């Protein structure tokens, strides 16, 4: 029972990290039809910003400095995403394949830039000491970082859903995911919505980058690439354009991954891609998908 609980919560923690990567990918794809390969770079940029804040700006890590690191990581990544959208994506209006290709280029350049500046060796991101502790639930001993991932993701999930539900730009985004040309035919300039999803997506990925640095014990320019693939998988399983779908799929995949790895070490990743193939072949639009571009 204690092992079960440990694996379950670890899986949910992993899923929470997946969600931070996937939510933005999903919104961007759902609204704009752009498969954003630079999303991994957003994550990495967030992680490096977090590292900078946690080592140079505030050398003595406390809970508050860690929160500052997450926010700084989110904002930097969000601004980078916004910049990319304005400078590159916007100029390739409606050329979806080219937009996807150009994000591949941005991802290569950003990774190489960070690698050239900081090297490819993983660097340790200092955290407050209590992150290393564990809590006891029943007879299960569970490392506390899992709860941090879950908590932060839950806050961001609620924030994103609130923006989508209660603001005008959120209404435009939801409508645009369904039928973008009709939104313009109501006299709405969807460019604002594009910029918004890129910033929100970049922000979530940036915060995710800081947390992933804690999870995987280091910051490295290459960290974005491998998480991006799992981000894609979560998005596709959850349904393109659906934030709630991404959240459910992320949890499902995180938990499955951990249980499979427990029984056969290394099997987790394999099971995940098989889930992906199975979902796509039976329901190509994903669990909660509205669009199938």
């Amino acid at each position, binding site marked *: 029972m204690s092992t079960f609980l440990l694996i379950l919560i670890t899986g949910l923690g992993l899923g929470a990290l997946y969600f931070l990567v996937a939510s933005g990918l999903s919104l961007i794809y759902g609204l704009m039809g752009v498969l954003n390969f630079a999303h991994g770079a957003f994550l990495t940029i967030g992680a490096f910003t977090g590292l900078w804040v946690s080592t140079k700006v505030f050398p003595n890590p406390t809970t508050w400095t860690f929160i500052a690191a997450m926010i700084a990581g989110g904002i930097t990544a969000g601004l980078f995403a916004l910049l990319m959208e304005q400078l590159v994506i916007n100029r390739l209006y409606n050329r979806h394949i080219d937009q996807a290709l150009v994000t591949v280029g941005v991802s290569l350049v950003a990774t190489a*830039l960070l690698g*050239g500046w900081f090297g490819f060796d993983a660097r340790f991101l200092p955290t407050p000491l209590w992150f290393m502790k564990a809590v006891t639930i029943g007879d299960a001993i569970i490392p506390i970082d899992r709860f941090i991932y879950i908590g932060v993701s839950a806050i961001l999930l609620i924030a994103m859903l609130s923006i989508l539900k209660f603001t005008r730009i959120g209404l435009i985004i939801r409508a645009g995911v369904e039928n973008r040309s009709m939104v313009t035919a109501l006299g709405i300039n969807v460019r604002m919505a594009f910029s918004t999803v890129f910033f929100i997506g970049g922000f979530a990925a940036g915060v995710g980058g800081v947390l992933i640095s804690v999870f995987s014990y280091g910051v490295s320019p290459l960290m974005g690439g491998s998480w991006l693939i799992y981000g894609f998988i979560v998005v596709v399983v959850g349904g393109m354009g659906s934030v709630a779908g991404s959240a459910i799929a992320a949890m499902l995949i995180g938990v499955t991954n951990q249980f499979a790895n427990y029984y056969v070490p290394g099997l987790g990743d394999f099971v995940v891609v098989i889930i992906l193939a199975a979902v796509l072949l039976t329901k190509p639009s994903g669990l909660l998908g509205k669009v199938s571009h």
Partner: protein
Amino acid sequence: MLRWKYSRPLLIAITVIFAILPFAGDNPLSKAGLQQTMAVAFLFGALALTYDLLFGFTGLLSFGHALYFASGIYVTAILINDFNWHFLLAILGAVIFTAFLAVLTGSAALRTTGITFAMVTLAFGQAGHVVIARDFGDFTNGDDGLPVNADRLPDFFIGVVNTKYLYLLALGILVFIYFAAWWITESSAGRVFAALRDNEQRVSVLGLNPNRFKLLSFVLSAAMAALIGAAMLIVSGSASPRYASADITIALLLMVILGGPVTRWGAVLGGIVYSVLSTRLNVLSEGSAFDSLPSFIGGPLSEPAFTLGLIFILIVMFAPGGISGAYYRARFKYLNKGK
């Protein structure tokens, strides 16, 4: 037509020159180092062409092409090492195995289209990568890679002095793949592939089953990728999980875009240029070429991905069609000037 009437003789002449150079006295290509670099580049040129067959000619955006390349490498290595097959038989076995694998995965993936298809192929590709890197079934030796048993290869492929034969092997494979791709794309099936890319409805109206032709294109390019993989095993001496990673497929995409899709020679050139650039830029960065620059410029410049990524962005944004596209545009202008 845009084709220059001497383009074919020129292509043959270039090929012959490349084939002779390693044996023609003292020149850059008589050195084993560059021969090895070029051999790998030729194979990537050929591999890019097989990807162009899918992406450019048929309009299928696959993110799992590396799977078939890796399957060619690994199955050949396993058949040679563990089953003691003759290397030619092993290559044949690997190509047939990969073709079957492509029939299975391709017919499943082709139930979807567009981005979903890209994601399903990515999933299969990743599954393959996991199987290889985690060594399920104790065949692949995991992350350490799998050196091919040199005793089972002919002597003229072994040793630094014989690199020129590896070079010839790679060039030969490239020529073979080029002709195969030429034959396929100019055949009636090839015309259907092109029609599928442009307008799938029209093909089904003609009474042809679009999916069957897509599968044909998928399997053919996979089988060719497997053959190239087998050659890569011999050229590089060992199989490694990185050949199965999604990075390889993305690199192939970059190569095709760099050279320009749907022109055949564009993809090959893109593959060769990309491969040579990434190797040579690496060498440059290990030397002192960038030492005189301030480190915030020199650091990124010494990363091949930085330069390649930048070139790639510029091509997508300002020069669609890549190298071959630019050539045809220039030629089009030139031809119209005469009128």
